[in-house]
């Protein structure tokens, strides 16, 4: 790791102030992606502003179907929250499968979303749930938030403070993990809400998380795994690496989508 200066923020406003003063500063929350990247000298911020001790970023609020999750909430907390489990078990299930127990103790939903790793799980959920990403400056629809590989709509110094969504009637998430890294090699989140069906795919697309519109159309007619049978997933825009070719990933998208629907219908 290169040299870095650490600052611990006490509030969101404090964090914003600290990052402004920094040269090439970065926020760190759980640090589960950033710290490893810094260790390998692949990331070299001059300053780290730690959001882990900011109370206003923490906690899960469920009011009827309205869910708000503070950005600093860990995966373990999301996985274990009983109120959330009651209204949106698919998201709890997703959180329970991120990384490993140690990662889930540290990693946060805000950190995952702001990093937008193409193999991360949460972006698929946010997109499929039609979530709103709340920052210290504004609110951004998930659709507009994830803009490419490791790219988001966040401006310099902007902090994700929470995510908000209406719990869908049904939802399910299934992923096929990269056997080595255990990140999603393909993950599909399906949600059937008031405004229709959304299917979001992570880990597979060469431009990051995306919606599978033809699947959504088919599932809107009939929310059943069998409804996806005739749909061909094109390998054209899939990632390809030593673990999975574009063709194999395209297959996984179809398989995981069917399984996610089946899970949602359980």
């Amino acid at each position, binding site marked *: 790791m290169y040299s870095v200066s650490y600052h611990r923020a006490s509030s969101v406003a404090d964090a914003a102030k600290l990052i402004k003063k920094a040269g090439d500063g970065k926020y760190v929350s759980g640090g589960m992606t950033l710290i490893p990247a810094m260790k*390998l000298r692949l990331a070299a911020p001059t300053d780290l502003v730690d959001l882990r001790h900011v109370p206003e970023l923490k906690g899960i609020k469920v009011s009827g179907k309205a869910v708000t999750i503070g950005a600093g909430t860990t995966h373990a907390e999301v996985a274990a929250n009983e109120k959330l489990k009651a209204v949106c078990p698919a998201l709890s299930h997703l959180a329970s499968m991120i990384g490993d127990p140690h990662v889930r103790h540290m990693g946060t939903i805000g950190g995952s979303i702001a990093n937008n790793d193409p193999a991360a799980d949460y972006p698929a959920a946010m997109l499929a749930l039609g979530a709103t990403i709340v920052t210290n400056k504004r609110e951004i629809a998930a659709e507009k938030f994830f803009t490419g590989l490791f790219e988001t709509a966040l401006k310099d110094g902007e902090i994700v403070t929470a995510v908000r969504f209406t719990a869908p009637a049904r939802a399910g998430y299934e992923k*096929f993990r990269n*056997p*080595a*890294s255990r990140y999603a090699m393909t993950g599909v989140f399906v949600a059937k809400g008031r405004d229709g069906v959304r299917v979001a795919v992570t880990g597979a697309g060469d431009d990051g998380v995306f919606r599978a519109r033809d699947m959504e159309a088919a599932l809107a007619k009939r929310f059943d795994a069998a409804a996806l049978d005739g749909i061909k997933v094109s390998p054209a825009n899939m990632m390809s690496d030593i*673990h*999975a070719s574009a063709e194999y990933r395209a297959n996984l998208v179809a*398989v995981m989508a069917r399984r996610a629907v089946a899970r949602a219908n359980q």
Partner: protein
Amino acid sequence: MGIEGVGARVARKEDKRFITGAGRYVDDMVVPGMKHAVFVRSPHAHAEIRKIDVAAARAMPGVIDVLVGRQLKADGIGNLICGWMIHSKDGSPMKMGAWSPLAVDRVRYVGDAIAIVVAETKGQARDAAEAVEVTYKELKAVTDASKAMGRGAPQLHPEAPNNLIFDWDLGNAAETDAAFGKAAHVVEMDVINNRLVPNAMEPRAALGHYDKAEDHYTCWTTSQNPHVARLVMSAFYNVAPENKLRVIAPDVGGGFGSKIYIYPEEIVCLWASKKTGVPVKWVADRTESFMTDAHGRDHHTHAAMAFDKDYRILGFKVETKANLGAYMSLFSSATPTYLYATLLSGQYDIPAIHANVKAIYTNTAPVDAYRGAGRPEAAFLIERMMEVSARRFGISPAELRRRNFITSFPHQTPVIMNYDAGDFAASLDAAMKAADYAGFARRRDEAKRRGRLRGIGMSCYIEACGIAPSAAVGSLGAGVGLWESAEVRVNAVGTIEVLTGSHSHGQGHETTFAQLVSQRLSVPLDSISIVHGDTDKVQMGMGTYGSRSGAVGMSAIVKALDKVEAKARKIAAHLMEADEADIVIENGELKVAGTDKKVPWFQMALAAYTAHNLPAGMEPGLKETAFYDPSNFTFPAGCYVCEVEVDPDTGHTDIVQFVAADDFGNIINPMIVEGQVHGGVTQGIGQALLEGASYDESSGQLVTASYMDYTMPRAGDVPSYRLSTSNTPAPSNPLGIKGCGEAGAIGSPPAVINAITDAIGTEELTMPATPQKVWAALKAATRH
């Protein structure tokens, strides 16, 4: 036999320190004034070094010094060598290229060391290493052995034209050709044994300390054989004479072969300590380990087997290309030759065998022995061949094997080995019974209803352990003898220290060796200490690899115990005025049989040291040394049955049952033996399903250089195992031990691949059988 003696499931003595965090590994060592080293390594697979500019790095904060290969050469430090001479079939010696611990004018693989930076902290050393400016002229690289032999391929070493290190034969070509001439059936196959990275959990490390006052060096290193390290560093690398060099291998976190070899880093740390005047510690990052630890396997083989009309094997022809990487590691030449081709008869009576092995340089990490070393390659080849043949012939895999088993011993194979004992059918029967082989069809049908493809596969392996008779391996080219040493020291109060040349890095010697002593001398386990891993404490020894510590290391202890016991009897007989022949040792006492006369063990020991009343002419003291040179290899063998379920949608394979029936001869501690099998089988499953080192062909970059891309077996990837052992004692050593450390890794890969191919109905499937590969194979099969 007491509860702590031979055969008892004694909990390990060494565990206490490991479960409380008190283990002492090289990285835990701190020497006053110690500084930290980082190596500058080649980012290119093949390049000329035009210039190395260390000025900027030297000026960085905390930097003590930056040293390069030219300085090392000027100080007379020698090149790394391979210690096993192989002659090609034309009689010419193997063609070994030069391997400088720090590259001087050329780099040959990604990770090749170029310079060492010594600084106050590791972070500062890393910062400075990045500031070392190396000007390269990139050269074309080749990572595939076949391509490296081809016309126009990049040439790695001037000594080895066409990158060919040796072209070696074993067996009789004419007889084998004649056998094929008589064949009713011939089965041909191409088989790849995938390249693996050993991945001991403790990364390699070295701490070099030069003591100016004494003109003496100490090296703490992650070694399986510290004495061999000292010998080689003294005799060949010219670091220091043996009496001026102490090598300590303290707790070592796994080896699996990768810590047998002497690598550039320990040599350079010792040299750098003298150069800089400070103790120098280097600890590998995992990525560095991936790049520079000796890799394993990487064989490409074409084989043909000839059968008569009754499916009895007539002959076996094998042509193997072995990729040895960019340099010849310490025992690299032995692995694809005498540890491989000599086992090509498997468990079968094969009248004629001929093997040709070509060893080839490529721009990849050096390849050497990794758990099993040559024997997994042989077992995989034979057991895939048997399975494919059985399926082609339409007879059951078990029946084809049974029909060809060797059933009488000793059995001389056409490839050097003389199997002295075994009962192959017994293991096969035991494994099939434990696996409920007969009930498989029902399980397959049940799985089918759940949308899963279930398959079953077996493997009947044999290996050679207990390496090895020194004269025999000497005649085959080994540069060392492969005996072992032991010293048994009975202290004046009766406690015992056993100094062994074996080295434990997970095998539990502190317990099993003590069990042997406890049984023989009838003293409690707690009063016995096993001392190993330090050349200043222990007499010359050869170390631990090739499943040899039981068969060879403990046999040396037996020999020393024989001497101790004989002297103890003499002393006791003298003290009790009895006949030496009437002395029995039991319950911590030396007794005169048939009388109530006895001397406690400690009192006899005290008498040996006070020397007030010893038999006339007897030397005081009670300490004996022995060297044991085995008279033959040992031949562990067994049968593994693997059952899998494949998810046809994703190609994911679950191992739903794994049965291992092994014949390890006599067993000292069943609990520890089982642990060795669990670990070995898991590494074999890793090879079959998950692991594969992969280089980018054009750039020569190691694509799988971290756990992000190299799949290590995790708890969820493997099942709980069902083990059984049969115990046909090894005739060649006093304890009848065969060895158990490598069997699991040798026997399991073919069982797994045979099971998956059974499940998906294909003949070919390369390792690792990743989900993607299995899915593609299934898809290709349904297309036909």
